[in-house]
């Protein structure tokens, strides 16, 4: 009894350690698996809840929710075409404004900027993403809208004679599709520029050096060697920005003018699906009205799903083309 073999103890201890590690691994695995299951399950549960709540409206109104443009709660007409139109147009305007700016910032920071400037400028651009949307809305009401009303809109319409086209015609009130597009552009910009900056910085040095060695100018190097290499990442960033623009609610509601009408003019007020829901949800008591708002939410859900799918496909196809 007194001479318990030492190697036995050692062996037991080792076994114990192996067991403990295995147990730790199992716990860790279970925890991460739980996280991996819970999040997608949550998305599916939300989708089911939204579509279930929207079902009575879809059953009663069918496709007229997206094909008609008469939204009249009292009369029982729920046509959200102007809101659908507004969501797509305001997001498109936002991307048209934000994309060149954001990519410009990203190229400057990754290719031209002196090292001491890179950090602070990058930080300030990223900071745009941290500003609450209601603050953007207030800034929109008190700074952007007065500026648009006078001088920006009259300048676009009269001085540049863009008023001759249907896109910049009509009176300049301030609240408009253009105002919503500008606010959304500022909000989407940090997402696009942050992602673009990272992927541009990740382009290997050898890629740049090879282009320069072949006698390319700096601009040619960026255009022909750097951007093609980073293209799929940049597209991913743009889609992230688009996702932000499609779903944004508060700031847009505050500047878009909330008029359920389809107008070609960017100076005219419009409506978006997210603002429609935000405006009417809290006071909706009638069942069909509530369900119609849920249906609008469900359609928005589907649109963002499609945008994400398209983004995936774009990234994938660009990556594949490069590989060939």
């Amino acid at each position, binding site marked *: 009894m007194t001479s318990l073999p030492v190697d036995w103890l050692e062996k037991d201890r080792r076994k114990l*350690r192996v067991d*403990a*590690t295995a*147990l*730790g*691994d199992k*716990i*860790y695995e279970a925890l991460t698996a739980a996280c991996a299951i819970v999040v997608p399950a949550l998305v599916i549960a939300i989708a089911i809840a939204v579509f279930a709540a929207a079902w009575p409206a879809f059953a009663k109104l069918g496709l007229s929710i997206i094909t008609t443009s*008469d*939204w*009249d*709660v*009292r*009369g029982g007409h729920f046509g959200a075409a102007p809101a659908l139109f507004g969501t797509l147009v305001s997001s498109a305007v936002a991307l048209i404004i934000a994309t060149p700016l954001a990519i410009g910032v990203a190229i400057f920071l990754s290719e031209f900027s002196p090292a001491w400037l890179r950090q602070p400028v990058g930080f300030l651009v990223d900071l745009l993403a941290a500003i609450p949307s209601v603050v953007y809305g207030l800034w929109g*009401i*008190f700074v952007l*809208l*007065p500026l648009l*009303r006078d001088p920006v809109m009259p300048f676009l319409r009269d001085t540049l004679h863009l008023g001759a086209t249907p896109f910049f015609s009509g*009176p300049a*009130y*301030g*609240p408009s599709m253009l105002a919503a597009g500008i606010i959304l552009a500022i909000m989407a910009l940090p997402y696009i520029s942050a992602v673009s900056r990272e992927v541009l910085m990740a382009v290997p040095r050898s890629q740049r050096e090879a282009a320069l060695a072949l006698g390319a100018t700096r601009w040619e190097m960026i255009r022909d060697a750097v951007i093609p290499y980073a293209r799929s990442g940049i597209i991913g960033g743009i889609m992230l920005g688009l996702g932000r623009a499609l779903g944004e609610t508060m700031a847009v*509601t*505050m500047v878009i*003018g*909330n*008029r*359920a009408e389809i107008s070609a003019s960017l100076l005219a*007020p419009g*409506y978006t699906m997210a*603002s429609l829901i*935000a*405006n*009417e*949800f*809290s*006071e*909706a*008591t009638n069942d069909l009205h509530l369900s119609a708002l849920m249906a609008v939410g469900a359609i928005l859900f589907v649109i963002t799903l499609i945008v994400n799918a398209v983004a995936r496909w774009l990234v994938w196809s660009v990556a594949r083309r490069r590989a060939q």
Partner: protein
Amino acid sequence: MRALKLAALMLLAVACAKESANNSGTSSSTATSASSGGSVDLTGAGATFPYPIYSKWFSEYADLTGVKINYQSIGSGGGIRQLSEGTVDFGASDSPMSDEELANAKAGPILHFPTVLGAVVITYNVPGLSAPLNLTAKAIADIFSGRVTKWSDTRITSLNPGVTLPGTDILVVHRSDGSGTTYIFTDYLAAAVPAWATSVGKGKEVKWPVGLGAKGNEGVAGQVKQTPGAIGYVELAYAKQNNLPTAAIANKDGKRVLPSVTTVTAAAAGAAKALPANTDYRISIVNAPGADSYPISSFTWILVYQRQRDPVKGKKLVDFLNWALTKGEAEAASLDYAPLPSSMASSVKARLSTIDLSGAK
């Protein structure tokens, strides 16, 4: 081993958090029961419009009696929904519940108790105008339906003799969000102008023929302030606190009346004369008779189930309403809410006794 330790630590942390939550829970509830002798907290939800005066009442009442009332100002629609589902002890709304909504309530009949009065004012931005603009229901309906589009239109200038109005376009600004303010405003136009009743109608959100939608009183006021030629409608309390220009409106008796706490209470008194004794107070007082009555006025209501399932909570609720209709009314004017006329406050109080506190199912 490290994972185990980590897990153990996490468990410990969770346990501690729970423990402290329990502790704070018990300590706070003992504190309230000490001060009030076993209080049951009440929860309510609904209209945002009376929230400032309600929260003042709730805090004073808590200081006085220890009864804590938690109120979520989520909008009248949300308040009605939550009360119908029975998830709150009382609801609050700026428009009376419809018969259909009443029928959908899960726990039986619901009573309406008017608490204070609100009013909607017409605010405008007409450069160079010093005296208040004069308007009639007909003129307002013409402007808000787009039939009158210039300030210099004779349908406006004839109401404002001796004032030169500009020949500029009128920009109509309305609420974009569903709101009791819109309900009161459109209720007034529908009551006073037959053509409005058949075209646009009344509701918390209507299909506006013209204009821009802005969110909230602050949105409408901001847009009107910034745009020369704009006209919009906001709550009286909001307009007073922000010194907005307000129009004088011709009432049912043909008198021009500016909105104020006094003229709004006068409207309730004018409407009260015509009330039957057994009224359920689901009444509109827009376009009320009386020389001093401001025509775009309305009650705001607290909604309570007639049969209270929990007699203790029910008693607290009745006691609070009794206090609010007595002491609370006196404080309304300081926050720019019009109090009920005193005769009406006492008949509403008398109606509190019809709440069934027996707890019978």
